């Protein structure tokens, strides 16, 4: 009978997953936060997308270089193929596989999100962050955690 409490090894840091679409302030803030949580960060980008090439160039320039300059291992960028154009499912599948392979470690999924000023503007942007969170709750396990990394469009007091 396992002892009640947090599962997963405490001696190892968590693996941090972050979903990225393109280079932006939202992504930058999310990566900085993810990198504080653990030295082991994996960024996931789902193909096909017209932005894949641009993202890889930006990644090299804005992420790889500064990490190497600081003498640290940069987060790795993984491109996930998606022949059915699903965005959420490949990410969820990757996380579940990763969790199975690392049965003693916990995984933190950082979800960078744009937060609008007004409620109706909510409909102008995709709500994949919410969907990803729900999908992970529905199919995940007790070693997978989700964290929202909000980026506010308007000013906050």
């Amino acid at each position, binding site marked *: 009978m396992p002892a009640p409490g947090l599962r997963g090894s405490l001696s190892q*840091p968590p693996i941090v997953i972050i979903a990225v679409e393109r280079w932006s302030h*939202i992504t930058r803030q999310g990566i900085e936060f993810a990198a*504080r*949580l653990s*030295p082991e960060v994996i960024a996931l980008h789902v193909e096909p997308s017209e932005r894949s090439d641009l993202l890889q160039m930006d990644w090299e320039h804005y992420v790889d270089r*500064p990490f190497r300059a600081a003498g*640290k291992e940069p987060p790795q960028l993984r491109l996930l193929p998606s022949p*059915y154009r699903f965005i959420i499912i490949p990410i969820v599948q990757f996380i579940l596989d990763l969790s199975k392979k690392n049965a003693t470690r916990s995984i933190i999924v950082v979800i960078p999100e744009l937060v609008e000023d007004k409620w109706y*503007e909510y409909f102008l942007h*995709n709500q994949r962050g919410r969907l990803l969170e729900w999908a992970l709750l529905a199919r995940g396990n007790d070693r997978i955690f989700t964290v929202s990394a909000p980026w506010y469009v308007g000013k906050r007091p």
Partner: protein
Amino acid sequence: MNLLDLIVGKPLKTSDERAEQIGPAEGIPIFGLDALSSAAYGPEAALSLLIPLGLLGVRYIIPVSSAIITLLVIVYFSYRQTIAAYPAGGGSYTVARFNLGARAGLLAAAALLADYILTVAVGISAGVGALVSAVPRLLPHTVSLCIGILIVITILNLRGVREAGVIFAVPTYLFVGTLLITIFAGAIRVVLSGGHPMPVAPLPPPPPMTEAVSYWLLLKVFASGCTALTGVEAVSNGVKAFRESAVDNARRTLTVIIFLLAILLAGISFLVKSYGIAATDPGQPGYQSILSMLIGAVFGKGVFYYIAIASILFVLSLSANTAFADFPRLCRAIAQNNYLPHAFGYRGRRLVYTYGIVVLALLSGGLLLLFRCVTDRLIPLYAVGAFLAFTLSQAGMVMHWRKHRGPHWLKSALVNGLGALVTGITVVVVLVAKFAEGAWITLLFVPLTIVFFMEVRRHYHSIKMRIACRLPVCAEASASRP
């Protein structure tokens, strides 16, 4: 297999896209259903306005129909040129945007959205209207029947265009076939009887004459009858859906659709005049549609009559499908220019633009509920949107020829210019003649939609500016390996 798979089918791969493309035989029902089925309500809309002239009024259908068919031919040449000039899909939106500027493009887009929403509403309500006039017992269930048909069409379209094509082909060809047989047989009877045929099924008594003829009345008759032209632009919007060579296949499809429509309109008018068929008051007891009286007069009310009426019912309610093929594509084009939420550009699990299909279903369903499914009240809204889009598209083509001066540019520009002028006059006539009867709703919808487009774009632009980032990450504070 889960429930969603059962309803909308298994997901398709992006690389399966080519298989979803079509040729003329499938293109005629998909892009022509709306145009061809207009023959079922266009002449009727014109004849309804001739009721006050009594039996005498019926003969005016010939000059009015001639004018409408002339307009149809002008519009045909215009769209033939458009298909070749814009093989990636040259709807009124694209043509107006490229040639008349972004603002005219938005005007065309808003007009087209109204046009498509009303194509769905009018098609379904007219189909169900015909059904309940044939089976009066169903009259109390009109609204639920309309909504039921709307749901079925929506699901078919969420499954994908190719399968929808097969399902819509049979009624379309049956509709055109039975009407052509009726016209052919009727024409022979007219000739054999020396121009005075006896109707097989008796016609209702002609209405009394309560008004004298005036040019204004004939102009209104023409404007209403022009609803027979709605839907002919569909092919030029959807050139991309055709197999290679897409331009040739699209042109062939358009030619067949226009030719069939012209034959149907000419034949119906000729027989209506020869048999002396006057319209009956819609919404009153004893109402019968023009086509019902016409087929009854030629063949009597036997098996053929019921097959023909059934195909009319099917085709009218399914004409909505043309809009379901085009509305999502238009929304995607608008969304790519950031004037609509980007969600309209995402293709769902079945390679169709799911959001466009669902939004169209919701808006047309709302209109059906608002107007309690009465076709007559929807038609004025319809004509304004459709003809505004025609006008902008053809005015855009005139500018196109002026810019790209090919060998016969002046002739081409004159054809399109004439089309723009005549369809423009039609818009004004419909707006003035039908303003109080509902045209004002479209007049309100169009500018409000344009404001919405501009707001969406402004918003996307400001977000893009704010999240654009040229700063590298700050790696100093990040966690280190233990």
